[in-house]
């Protein structure tokens, strides 16, 4: 399961208890600048992913990004537009950017959506939990992959 190419990195992630019974991957394999394998067994769903991205308290994406989601009037200007993300990046590349963008850019301000380590003073309600579950990451990736222009 671990294909140790020269650029391969292992991200050991603590498994949030809430969905431990669903068998989350507690080891995510990074190859180059991508995570080729899905985090969850259930395939991502683009419609659900769009709803997560649009939701201010779940995905939080539109706090910083803008994107082709016209019904959400207030979008951020801290980050590039999500339009065309699916044309710029492969599914595996998108997955790593959501899971932990700091792997690519240590100074990134994009929150690590699937990491629980290396964080300080996390509020008790969120302690040990990832921002998105493995299934939600897959949904978001599936949605981003549809953004071809």
């Amino acid at each position, binding site marked *: 399961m671990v294909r140790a190419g020269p650029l391969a990195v292992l991200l050991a992630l603590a498994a949030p208890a809430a969905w431990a019974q669903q068998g989350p991957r507690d080891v995510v394999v990074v190859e180059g600048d991508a995570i080729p394998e899905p985090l969850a067994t259930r395939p991502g769903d683009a419609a659900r992913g769009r709803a997560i991205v649009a939701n*201010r308290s779940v995905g939080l994406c539109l706090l910083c990004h803008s994107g082709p989601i016209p019904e959400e009037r207030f979008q951020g200007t801290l980050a590039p537009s999500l339009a065309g993300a699916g044309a710029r990046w492969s599914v595996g590349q998108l997955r790593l950017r959501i899971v932990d963008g700091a792997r690519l850019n240590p100074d990134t*301000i994009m929150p690590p959506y699937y990491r629980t380590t290396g*964080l300080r003073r996390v509020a008790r309600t969120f302690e040990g939990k990832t921002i998105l579950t493995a299934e939600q990451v897959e949904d978001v990736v599936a949605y981003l992959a549809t953004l071809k222009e």
Partner: protein
Amino acid sequence: MRTAWIALGLASVFVATFALAQGAADKRRSGYQDMGEALQKMQDDDTANPGMLFVQLGEQLFGRPAGAANKSCADCHGAGSMKGVAARYPAIPKDADKPVDLEGRINLCRTANQRAEPLAPESRDLLSLEAYVAFQSRGQPIAPPSDPRLAPFRAQGAEIYRRRQGQLNLSCAICHDDNAGKKLAGVTIPQAHPTGYPIYRLEWQALGSLKRRLRNCLIGLRAEAYAYDAPEYVALELYLMDRAKGMLLEAPGVRP
């Protein structure tokens, strides 16, 4: 008193204009300048600024005897003696070795001089007294004391300001230094200058302290907020006041 307010109210309009004209080299902006015109008008007009009701209440409390000593603030502090005070806090009280902020100073007078119970954080009475005291520094430049003993506390504040924290792994500096002026969803990110506190925030429908504002940002980062009496807030306030040195106080501010 009423006439004095109106006079000061007018002065504050000039103050606001002056703040805008602070000079091209100084890129610092009060959150006031990032608000819409309607809110700026509300802050500038003492008959429309809801914070002024608390100033009024604070004036009454200032003159009311309290505690086992049965003394009022006014018994020790004559009229006008609070001018400039809010511009230099947090500071280290006489015979102490740690800084307190303005609320801490007010409560110190409550317990040590009036021999009364301290007022609860964010209570109406504490905020009103603070508003009354801060109002007397309206239009004055922020002037942190040069006390060298403050340096390590200020440095601690700067460190907290720059450190990433919370589940979102962001720092104050990321938003307020690196991305100020950009939109977080629909909201313009201000530079986080503590010029208006205590503020009347429309979202709260209440007056609130700088501490309450800092807690809101921490909660936004999904970080564990410090307890209300934590020294971390005083450290952050020291750093923020130093960062805003020379900017003009505008308490009580109005914010969305």
